[in-house]
C-alpha cells in the first residue's frame, strides 16, 4: 500500500476512533464560520441600506412658470455633462399640474385656490441624481451662474444638506467599526481554532511519541493530522454553507419588506458563493494547518 493511502487510512481511523474530539473541533469551526458570515451579512445589509438611502436622495430644481422647454433642455444637457450625475428627469409644467391636482383631489379648498389663480401656476421641475450625496453640492454650485440662476425658482437640496452630511458621517463610522470588528473577530477566531487543534493534538501526545519510537517518520505522523485539518475544514465549510442558506431562506422574506427592488441575501450569497466561501475555506485551511504544524512541533521532539 502506498504511504499516501496508509496515511488516508490512519486519518479516517483517527477521526472515527476520536469521534467526540473530531465532532467538537468541527462544531467550533462551524460556530466560528457562522459568526463570520453573520458579520459579513450585516456588512452587506448596511451597504444595501446605505445604497437605498442614497438612492432616495435627489435634488429637485423648480423652474419659474415662464421657463421654456428649450431653456430647461439646455440646463439638462449642461448638467448631464458632469460625470457625477447619474440621472436627470424633467417633468413638464403640465405634468406637475396634473400631479398636484391628483395629490389634492380630495382637498376642495386647495383645488378652489388653484382655480382662482387661473391657468397653470407651476413651472417645470428637474430631478437630478448623482453617484454620491456629496456630489449634489457641486451640481448646485454649477447651476449658480447668472445664465441659469434667474430660471430656477427653488431648490430642494438645501433642506437635505445637513441630513446628508450627518448620514455620510454615520456610514463612514459604521464602515470603520465594521472593519475593527472584523479584525477583532479574525483574531479571536485564530485563537479559538489554534487552541482547539492544539488540545486535539495534545490529547494524542502519547500516541505521537509511541509512533516516533517505533520508527514512524515525521511526515508519517504529521500526515493524518494535516489531512484531518483538510477534512475538518471541508466538512465545516459544507455544513456552514448549508446552515447559511437555510437561515437566508428564513430571513429573506423579512428583508423584502424592508428593502425595495426585491433585494435578497440569498441572491447575494449565490452570486458571490465562490468568492465568499473560497476565501473562508482558504482562511480556515491556513489556520488549521498552521495550528496543526505548530502544535505538533513540540510533540515530534522525541
Amino acid at each position: 500500500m502506498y504511504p499516501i493511502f496508509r496515511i488516508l487510512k490512519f486519518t479516517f481511523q483517527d477521526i472515527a476512533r476520536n469521534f467526540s474530539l473530531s465532532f467538537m473541533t468541527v462544531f467550533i469551526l462551524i460556530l466560528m464560520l457562522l459568526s463570520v458570515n453573520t458579520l459579513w451579512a450585516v456588512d452587506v445589509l448596511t451597504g444595501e441600506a446605505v445604497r437605498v438611502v442614497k438612492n432616495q436622495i435627489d435634488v429637485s430644481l423648480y423652474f419659474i412658470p415662464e421657463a421654456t422647454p428649450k431653456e430647461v433642455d439646455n440646463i439638462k444637457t449642461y448638467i448631464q455633462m458632469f460625470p457625477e450625475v447619474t440621472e436627470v428627469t424633467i417633468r413638464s409644467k403640465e405634468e406637475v399640474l396634473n400631479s398636484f391636482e391628483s395629490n389634492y383631489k380630495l382637498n376642495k379648498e386647495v383645488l378652489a385656490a388653484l382655480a382662482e389663480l387661473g391657468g397653470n401656476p407651476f413651472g417645470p421641475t428637474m430631478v437630478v441624481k448623482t453617484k454620491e450625496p456629496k456630489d449634489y453640492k457641486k451640481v448646485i454650485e454649477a447651476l449658480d451662474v447668472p445664465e441659469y440662476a434667474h430660471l430656477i425658482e427653488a431648490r430642494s437640496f438645501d433642506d437635505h444638506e445637513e441630513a446628508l452630511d450627518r448620514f455620510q458621517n454615520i456610514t463612514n463610522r459604521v464602515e470603520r467599526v465594521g472593519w475593527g470588528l472584523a479584525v477583532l473577530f479574525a483574531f479571536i477566531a485564530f485563537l479559538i481554532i489554534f487552541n482547539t487543534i492544539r488540545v486535539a493534538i495534545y490529547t494524542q501526545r502519547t500516541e505521537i511519541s509511541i509512533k516516533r519510537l517505533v520508527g514512524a517518520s515525521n511526515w508519517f505522523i504529521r500526515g493524518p493530522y494535516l489531512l484531518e485539518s483538510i477534512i475538518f475544514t471541508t466538512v465545516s465549510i459544507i455544513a456552514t454553507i448549508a446552515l447559511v442558506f437555510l437561515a437566508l431562506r428564513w430571513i429573506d422574506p423579512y428583508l423584502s419588506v424592508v428593502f425595495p427592488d426585491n433585494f435578497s441575501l440569498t441572491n447575494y450569497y449565490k452570486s458571490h458563493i465562490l468568492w465568499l466561501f473560497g476565501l473562508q475555506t482558504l482562511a480556515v485551511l491556513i489556520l488549521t494547518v498552521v495550528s496543526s504544524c505548530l502544535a505538533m512541533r513540540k510533540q515530534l521532539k522525541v
Partner: protein
Amino acid sequence: MTRLGRIAKIWYNVFMIKLHSVSKIYPAETVAVRNLNLQIDAGEFVSIVGQSGTGKTTLIKLLIAEERPTRGKIEIGDWDITRIGSRDIPFLRRQIGIVFQDFKLLPKKTVYENTAFALEVAGESGRRIHAVVPQVLEIVGLHGKADRYPYQLSGGEQQRVAIARALVHRPKIIVADEPTGNLDSINTAEIVSILSKINEFGTTVLLVTHNREIVNHLRRRVVTLNNGEIINDDREGKYRL
C-alpha cells in the same frame, strides 16, 4: 552513502554495539552515565542491571537516539548514531525492536494494528503485513486476540503485543526496558522465555532489569551499573547488587 545504502549495510553487516567513553550529563551537572565503554556482539543476550537512577534507561535512550551523548561515540554496526541526523532516526528505530515497562501501545489500535504499525511505518506492502503479523502473534501466543484493543488485555498480554510489535520487522537488536516491571511472576517467566527464544534465533537482546530472579535464572552476560558507571561485566554473571 545514501540512506538506503546505510540501511542495507546495517542489515547485512554484523550488528555489533559499541560504546566509546560515553557520558550523558543533563543540565545542572546531573551525570546520568559516565565514561561507558561497552561492546555487545551480535546475537548476545545481555542483562543490564542496577538500582533505580543508575543510568539504565538513559543507556537505552542513547541507543535509540532519544537522547544524544554529551561525550563519546556510539556505534551500531557501521552506523555512528552519535552523529545521526533527525531524518535518519526513524530508520535507526526500525532496526531496533523496543519493549517498554509501560508497554507503550497505541490505545486506539487493535492488537493486529499495533503489531502491523511497525511494518506500516517502514513502508512494507500490505500483502507482507498480512502474512507476517499473524505469524508473530502466534509466536507470542496472541493469535486469537488480534481484534482486541489494549484495554481488553491483561498486563502480560499487553507486554506480549509490545514484543510482537518489536519483533515483527525482524530486528537485529531487541531492547527491553524493564519489560516485566508491571507483571506477576507467571507473566514474567513467559516474557523472559519469549525473549530467550528470540535470542536463540540470533537476535541480540538487551534486557534492562532489576529483577534478581530473572538475571540469576538466565545465567547470561550481566552488565552492572552503579552511579552511571559500569562496575561489573560478567560473561555468565549473577545479580550482584
